[in-house]
């Protein structure tokens, strides 16, 4: 089971703050998220390492997807 956590407005696009998805085989992140998922000014962390929509996600990965903010 791969875990996906979405922060800020991205949780509304994804329809949840946390989703757990079973992956039968390694899959591109782009193919997991419902299109059109924003790509610009987004941080993708896969097991704490920086990734992108073309990163390959495996069944045990933890993925955090968040906007780049500017601070208060």
């Amino acid at each position, binding site marked *: 089971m791969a875990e996906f956590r979405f922060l800020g*407005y991205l949780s509304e696009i994804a329809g949840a703050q946390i989703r757990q998805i079973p992956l039968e085989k390694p899959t591109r992140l782009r193919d997991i998220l419902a299109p059109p998922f924003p790509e610009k000014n987004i941080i993708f962390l896969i097991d704490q390492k920086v990734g992108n929509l073309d990163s390959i996600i495996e069944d045990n990965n933890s993925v955090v997807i968040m906007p780049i903010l500017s601070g*208060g």
Partner: protein
Amino acid sequence: MKGYSGGLLRINLSERKVSREDISEEMQLDFLGGRGFAVKLLWDEVRRVDPFSEENKVIFSTGPLTGQAIPNSGKMVIASKSPLTGGYGDGNIGTMASLHLRKAGYDVLVIEGKSEEPCYLIIEDDKVSILNAQTLWGKSTFEVQDILEEKHGKNIGILLIGKGGENLVRFATVISQKGRAGGRPGIGAVIGSKKLKAVVIKGSGTIPNFDNNKLKELAKKGYSEIKEKKSYDFWIRQGTMQAVDWCNENACLPTYNFREGVFDFYKELNGETLERIKIGRRGCPMCNMQCGNIVNDWNNRPSELDYENVGMLGSNLGMKDLRQVAVLNRMADELGLDTISLGSCLGFAMEASERGLIPEKIGWGDFQKIQNLIVDTANQEGLGKVISQGVRAASEVVGKDSYRWAMHVKGLEISAYNCHVNPAMALSYATCPVGAAHKDAWIIGWEISTDRFSYGKEKVEKLIELQRVRGGILECLTICRLPFVELDFGYHKIPEYMEAITGNRFDWDDSCKKIGDRVYNLIRCYWIRENSQFNRKWDYPPDRWFDEPQSQGKLKGITLDREKYNQMLSWYYELRGWNQNGIPTEETLINIGLRKVFQEMMNQNG
């Protein structure tokens, strides 16, 4: 030049003298406005003086975009020689006063001298009066806002100080419209030292633009574009408060005086909690993405929250209830205290108490004792008197190794991002021209999106690029950064606005580099001229980030690497054209038209 009101209004409170001067086209081209005008005036007119002396001046400065009917143009810069840092100090504030100053026919207001008795100013176009403020002195900023509105009318520009400014708290700020604040490095205290309680501005004119029809068309398009952004609705609901979750996730939420980057109770303070208790929004004029979230506080009174004040008065103090944090925030606004510095000073006092370095007992999250200490700070009493001087001075009083966890750079308290594992953000704080403010280059988002653990030269290059744009150009134009950086509202809009306003071509890249660098270098020279002991050590963040790792969260056990940070700082100096003590070289200053500045800086400093 078109787009400028063209006037500088100078008011000397000692002599009770008012004069109007023209701002030259050369000044407009070289320094643009806002921060650029402010540092040029301070460089020329405020040399090696005590910040609380009659010779210090307060500059209220706008730019060509200020007060125009375009998105996010309601800001002004307030600057002075800082009593908190001893260097150049400024902050920006979104207020109706920005619009009214421009409509009254001025781009800049300079206050100098000192009044013998409390006074306030009313500026109605070319009519200026200095009025008695004896009955206003000692009153809260909220109360005086109401009194002055009642007397002079609503929807006018009002800038105020509270008790903090009156009592010379070194991080006293300027307040407007019950919650807008600006001038973090103690500009409110400088105003207090001049016995000036408030400035009221009513302008009735128009700004002479080159092409108003074109500007109107661009503005309409701009406002619509902002509203159509995917993140707009969420922004309207939470504004900067969404950063609580973001910072906790990335282990950079200031917690227990920046000891930790994650807070067990962050959900009690986050954007979702805000949404449950929110009763309205406030913000700057001309803005359609207002970021001030109004909640009813623990005492059922309105308080305007954003991320910085919740980070610093919330998790940094171990506070677990947003409505209680809202009380502390409202107290700060009423007293005219900067919430960031206040949160840092309170956190420092609580850690000193925990370590047994002071006799007072004040535990993390102790709501009542924190409120008492805030009042004592504004009144300069007891422990409050110690922290009212800022965390750098407080650590000198407390002694032992407390300087290691006094969280400041150059005397200005660090805003709400913990940088144990963010070397570029740490460098951003350390090289920010007013001390540790986040607004000049909020590089942490970019850094986490690339590689937060690395110390490469590309990070230093990116930092300078951001400083040129945000600390350089946006602060000179006095336009808010949030639509550009939060909603991806492209920077290409600015040259379009500038061309409609001034009639001149505005080259974005060239302006960022030339004007941005000129302003940054002149500010750096100001620090050096005013502080003969200035050296490389002034560009370091506190020891805590190098030596004391976080004990919780995913970044547990990691700190900044001192040697690698030092290398980044060397690259920074090299790329800026500064020597390895952080001093601009003669060649660098000549290249940006500041030849005479070098000689004066070296004469005064040497």
